[in-house]
């Protein structure tokens, strides 16, 4: 951050920030919006917002946490905007994301894993966000609480409910 505040090195410092934080932010956003092109757009927006907000960043939280918070908000905003724009009712959003998952040729899922991913897509957006951060990114509840602004207790409950829902959906008929 000191480098960023030095006018002569601001751009260079921001470039380093982008390079360091792109992989975890990409994974988080990709798991939320599914589509690779949409992920690019959202991630770019995240960094542009960060660029605008960084001069006022007070360093109360870690830079990574702050970027994750922007990415979470941007992902959910993007999904809601797309839902409104494409007139996708809430029930069929899962179908829409499933289609995106099917069309994702970059990843070759085995049958069980695809079912697992589809079960995750059935979760509400915020619950899915919490689940992805805990399950895939191995974040602690304290870190997630700082990002989402929710209490640790509520997050534990949310994650527990999410796992139960997924297990129920994975049960053979």
């Amino acid at each position, binding site marked *: 951050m000191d480098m960023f505040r030095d006018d002569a090195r601001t751009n260079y410092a*921001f470039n380093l920030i982008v390079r360091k934080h792109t992989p975890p932010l*990409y*994974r988080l956003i*990709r798991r939320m919006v599914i589509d690779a092109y949409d992920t690019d757009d959202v*991630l770019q927006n995240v960094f542009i917002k960060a660029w605008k907000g960084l001069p006022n960043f007070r360093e109360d939280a870690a830079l990574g946490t702050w970027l994750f918070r922007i990415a979470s908000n941007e992902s959910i905003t993007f999904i809601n905007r797309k839902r409104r724009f494409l007139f996708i009712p809430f029930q069929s959003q899962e179908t829409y994301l499933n289609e995106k998952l099917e069309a994702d040729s970059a*990843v070759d899922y085995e049958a069980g*894993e695809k079912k697992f991913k589809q079960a995750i897509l059935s979760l509400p957006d915020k619950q899915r966000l919490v689940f992805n951060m805990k399950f895939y990114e191995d974040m602690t509840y304290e870190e997630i609480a700082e990002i989402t602004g929710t209490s640790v207790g509520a997050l534990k409950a949310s994650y527990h409910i999410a796992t139960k829902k997924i297990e129920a959906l994975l049960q053979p008929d």
Partner: protein
Amino acid sequence: MSFEEKYNRYKKSGKLHVSDDYVNEMAGKVSEHISSRKKGIPRQFVWIFSGTAAIAVCMAVVFFAPLNHTDNPGNAVSQQTGQPNLNMKDSGNLASNSETQKIESKELDHDAIVEYLLDEEYEEI
């Protein structure tokens, strides 16, 4: 067995790999975007200019629209509105136009004509 233990294989295989090429590409895009925003005209000015231009166009359309009406000044009744045609400056004599008289007898609002005849503008003519 916990949920994590049970589905650990999906956790491992679900790790998305982000290549260095992608990271470089994203850094380039962001850097380009930031530098183009710095050099360009601030967005609020673009909005102000385009908004002013749009308002000016709307006002021009509203102001000049009546001049584009192609009513024949000699017609007593406007062909567009069906109302008495009060645009008589170039019309000459209202009574001399036989076609006008025909229409007048059927459709003219006599009160409007009288009002027009009493108008100062008519006196000038």
